[in-house]
């Protein structure tokens, strides 16, 4: 399966990349390529122009010096996985990224790419949703920041406008007492998740539950989070988290996964 023809430009600067993307309605940004290139190969996408962001070292930072974690959009998933800083302060990301494809995918795949692609079965969008991440976007004409709820709009659909790039993901620090878990159910190891859950819990202080597979976008289970803070146990919170899901099996699956994840962080 060979791609349809396209022009290629390697970005020399962020502003240069934004200029190229603004100028051509039929341009696509290329980051890790692990999602875009298969689509090109299957001819499910046939852009006129590919703007290669990989030369932009300025987008590949991974920095927690300011207390929050700042992930440059071009940070490789493998880099995230191996970061001691992330492991210390944001272990949920380490837990989630281990489920992203396989080592060879993570060598090239980027955190920003996974987020911008917004596959409903992807792990990083769910983990970042649980972490209350903020997503910083740039276009030729300006900048804006969105929450996860604002960014993820549907299957493979985000609020990114044509010509707009995700440049950085900002993840606030979690309470020191927080424990995290990420569980998913997939057909085979490394396969896209059928369902999953990301959980952060600092008892009495902070609770976050984000569901993968409840909808076409990551979903925060607000009622369940509140119940946990009010002292609910794993079973009750899990039932609340999945309550709105119509399909019996999917609801049971997410209830089970949520309960097991909560068991882990409350053990």
């Amino acid at each position: 399966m060979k791609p349809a023809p396209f022009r290629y430009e390697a970005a020399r600067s962020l502003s240069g990349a934004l200029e190229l993307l603004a100028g051509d309605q039929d341009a696509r940004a290329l980051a890790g390529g692990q999602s875009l290139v298969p689509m090109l190969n299957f001819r499910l996408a046939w852009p006129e122009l590919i703007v290669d962001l990989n030369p932009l070292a300025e987008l590949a930072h991974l920095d927690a010096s300011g207390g929050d974690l700042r992930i440059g959009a071009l940070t490789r998933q493998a880099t995230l996985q191996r970061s001691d800083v992330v492991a210390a302060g944001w272990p949920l990301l380490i837990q989630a990224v281990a489920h992203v494809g396989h080592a060879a995918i993570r060598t090239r795949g980027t955190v920003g790419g996974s987020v911008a692609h917004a596959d409903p079965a992807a792990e990083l969008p769910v983990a970042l949703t649980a972490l209350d991440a903020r997503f910083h976007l740039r276009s030729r004409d300006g900048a804006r920041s969105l929450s996860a709820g604002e960014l993820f709009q549907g299957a493979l659909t985000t609020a990114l406008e044509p010509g707009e790039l995700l440049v950085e993901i900002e993840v606030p620090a979690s309470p020191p007492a927080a424990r995290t878990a990420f569980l998913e159910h997939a057909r085979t190891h490394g396969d896209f998740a059928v369902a999953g859950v990301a959980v952060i819990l600092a008892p009495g202080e902070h609770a976050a539950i984000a569901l993968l597979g409840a909808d076409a976008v990551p979903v925060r289970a607000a009622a369940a989070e509140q119940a946990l803070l009010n002292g609910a146990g794993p079973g009750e919170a899990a039932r609340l988290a999945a309550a709105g899901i119509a399909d019996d099996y999917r609801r049971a699956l997410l209830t089970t996964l949520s309960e097991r994840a909560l068991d882990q962080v409350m053990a």
Partner: protein
Amino acid sequence: MTRSELIGAPLPRREDARVLRGETRYVDDVVVPGMAHAAFVRSPHAHAGITSISVPQDAEGLIAVVTAADIGAAVRAFPVMEPDDMEVNHAEAHPVLAAGEVRYAGQPVAAVIARTRALAEDAAELVDVQYDERPAVLAPRESGVVLTRWSGGAGDVDAAFAAAAHVVSGSYALPRLIAAPMETRGCVAAYEPVDDCLTVWCSAQDIHRPLAQLSHILDRPPAGIRLIVPDVGGAFGSKGVIAPEIAAVAASAMRLGIPVKWTEDRLENLVGGTQGRGIEGDLQLALAADGRMLGLRARLWADLGGYLLTTTPIPPHTAATLITGVYDIAAAAVTVVGALTHKVPTGPYRGAGRPDAAYMVEALVDEAARRTGIHRVELRRRNLIRSFPHRTATGLEYDSGDYERCLDLALELAADGGRARDRDGGDGDVVRGRGIALYVERAGGGWESAEIELGPGGTFAIASSSSPHGQGHDITFAQIAADRLGVPIQDIELHFGDSATSPPGVGTFGSRSVAMAGSAVAIAADDLLAQARARTGAAIVDWQRLAEVAGPDRPRAAARFQSANVFSSGAYVATVRIDCGTGELTVERLIAVDDAGTLINPLLVHGQVIGGAVQALGECLTEEAVYDDGGQPRTGSFLDYSLLTAAEVPPIVTGEVQTPSPFNPLGAKGAGEGGAVGTLPAVANAVTDALGGRRVEPPFTSDKLWRALHDDPRGDGR
């Protein structure tokens, strides 16, 4: 003749070194100067008439667009095999390119030849085909169009059922599967007018069948085609018939006078490659009060697809003839109907009808155990065939076997495994089950040949009619020849895979290569040794001296070996657990006992058993070729058709029983498919056990199992 250290020696394959260094040559590595590349325009509809085809006047790199109209007079439709006594509707043979009608989504309509594959795909998008859509039939029982039919049986079945204390019924369905070898199909075709020779490099299981198929399709004598099988990256039955695209490429190469390469891409392979299984059955078993099986009725429906390819009729026929399994059932009536459906044609895939039969009969026997109250192992023991040769009610003659020994060994190996039905609360609510299955399968048969000659240096060159695609023919046949000749194995060189130099044969499929081609090698070697002994007058031959002395008149021998089918068998035990919260199935342990007769190289046999078993585990856990209601294939990528990885494979414990076959000098049977045949019914029976007797069809996906557990919480519904 005493057995040397070579027969039964688990020698590593000497042919591995060049593979490990990346020095192989698969068909996509073949380069012919001036070669062009093919892509295909394919039907988007499951069933439609073609009203018009317009081709672009020009496109970058485009050489030609070839349709049925262009090659119509030069090609015939595919030849179709006729298994014994099976009615086959040859009129529905697959055409090379669609002419007037398409019967499955993905069917090739036009070949687009261009300078590069990418340019060919670009040009293919510019070909405009107009269709009038027609209704698509997807279920074989609803088809109404019969492509193949077979009935068989013996004994008074009505009397058996009338006399029965118990009659047990079951309905079964196996979905279609995709072979998905890591190397897709492909060819390079080059025509040389000077000597009127068409050369085709083909990723295929053997040279003989592609050669015969092309010869028939192109209406060209076999001598006018040179068929070369280079390194091949797996097949599992799916390369036993050439793809229609290969015939189209060969015809195009001749028509255009340019060499043409077609490398199937993975989308084409998952959508357009022949699929396996796709069979349903209604079975009934009549038993006496003591559990003796008196009679079996079976009606099978095969989902054959839109046309017959050469090998399409075979698997359902095999399933029908093996339906009585390892049991001594005197009366049986079996029919199988192969129906037309608007999907890609089916064909042999690892097991090719054998797993289908084992799945159905072994599930039915377990059901009989539940009904009669006789333990499932005991019920089997009471009915095993114990004397050989044994002629089945379906007309097969089993040569030898010891089914009870397989069963006993499997149970012994399983002794410290899981327990039946165990619902434990607390940490992970799970149910467990254990399943047992016995199988017998048809192997060997037909004929193969070998030629051996003494080389100038006192070493040996053997040309075998059989060619490998991963099985290890080189080391295995070298072991056989070295053993027969009493020489070091490094003195034996094997050659395969070129119709210009290989002796004639039948093909590599159906677990037959050691029994048939290996025996031909053995006989040829024996003949050579006899000649050499006669010439030298010595029992122990100095081969180097003989070669020097003989000059150009060095001894050579040829052998053609033919025999009836031989029958491998085995007993498998699976323990499984199902997570009640997610429905997830985990196979905890698999015991695999196989009887493949004499084993030449146990290291390779073990690899075949594990490989086959893991394919069957895929069939149990994830694999299914899916079509939507409109006949559109939904499993066109590896993200949709999910293959098992190393992380999903459970511990597999193997054991061997060896009951030699009396039908060949090696005593060999077939080891290539047992893993795929025994694993499916064992795991299926274990799942049914875990569900308390409720059956679901494979693949045993989480959602199916969860619903089975929760729709019927007591687990004893049906």
